[in-house]
């Protein structure tokens, strides 16, 4: 897999690689307990968040299974870094990836996460040639579940009490979309957007 051309854009957002100067913006959301649970790097203070940022700065390519590709989500209007999206290459032969996204809670409810996630899915299928991309979320996290369903991912799994998390039984949803399904739904979206314009 080759190195993709970056940054990539949407109407309101730019998705780009992380930079050292992003520390303050990442500090603003990365250490929040509600966000922490879903992140690879556990970070509670500035030193740990800095280490997490260093980690994400190295996630610039998908060359072998197990690699993660992470992009910062930046609002074009004021250059504010509001979260990140990533793709994790899961499977050596079946071209499977997991999508993850984190948005600073201050910037929620404006459709930014959906905008970034949709762009990342298109990117993942087109640039990396994935066959299927899936995303997981806690069953209690209704906002994420609505988002994933809303952009056209299918609910594939609803696990009940399949694992303990901090002493409590976990309930988890899996959403997924295949490359051909995404191509189809994108055509519908583009057609609708064109009609409205």
């Amino acid at each position, binding site marked *: 897999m080759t190195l993709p051309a970056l940054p990539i854009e949407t109407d309101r957002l730019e998705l780009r690689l992380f930079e050292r100067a992003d520390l303050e913006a990442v500090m603003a959301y990365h250490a929040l307990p509600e966000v922490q649970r879903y992140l690879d790097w556990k970070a509670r203070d500035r030193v740990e968040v800095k280490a997490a940022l260093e980690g994400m700065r190295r996630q610039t390519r998908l060359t072998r299974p197990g690699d993660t590709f992470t992009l910062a989500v930046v609002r074009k209007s004021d250059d504010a870094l509001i979260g990140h999206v990533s793709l994790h290459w899961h*499977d050596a*032969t*079946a071209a*499977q990836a997991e999508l993850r996204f984190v948005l600073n809670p201050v910037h929620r409810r404006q459709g930014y996460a959906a905008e970034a996630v949709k762009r990342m899915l298109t990117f993942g299928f087109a640039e990396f040639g994935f*066959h*299927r991309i*899936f995303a997981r979320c806690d069953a209690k996290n209704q906002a994420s579940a609505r988002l994933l369903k809303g952009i056209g991912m*299918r609910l*594939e*799994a*609803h*696990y*009940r*009490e*399949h*694992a*303990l998390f901090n002493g409590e*039984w976990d309930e988890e949803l*899996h959403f*997924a979309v*295949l490359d051909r399904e995404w191509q189809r739904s994108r055509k519908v979206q583009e057609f609708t957007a064109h009609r409205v314009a």
Partner: protein
Amino acid sequence: MLETGSIMRPSPELPIETERLILRPFTRGDVDAVFAYRQREDVARFLFDGPMTRETCAEAVQTRVRQISLADEDDRITLAVERRDGGELIGEVTTIWRSVADRQGEVGYIFNPDFQHKGYATEAVRALISMSFAELDLHRIYARCDTRNVASFQLMERLGMRREAHFREHKLIKGAWDDQYIYAILQSEWVAA
């Protein structure tokens, strides 16, 4: 309740008897009976492995002989299913200890099609799940199957398991896209039913 740090080595009391069946440890003498169905193309169709040669089958049986208790994650208890009338070995059932900390288990089953449509598989898997909840104290048990394996998922539905997942083209198995169902049941649901 076991104390933290104690070594848990669940080893259920065997054999398990049901109305028409005995679930017992494998013995070396079972190779021919197992080979009778594991060599079949129709049996292997929805399994991860292809049809077995007699040699692989003998090795598989040899492995199963020791699978009668659990010590570590991914250990399994595998039992031969025998008819009480006639004594034929008609298939095999297994419980895999998928997570020790989260008390999760997976069950699997393979039966000789010559003995189909008599409810033997359902009877055997029901007994296996009951034993797994009662003696291994699992919290949740799941089973997986190819979505085209109607007999397999109907069995799970008969046992009251819920379909928790339908994965589409999530893996390549034997060179083809795999569509898979996962069914599951909690100990609380099993006891209540």
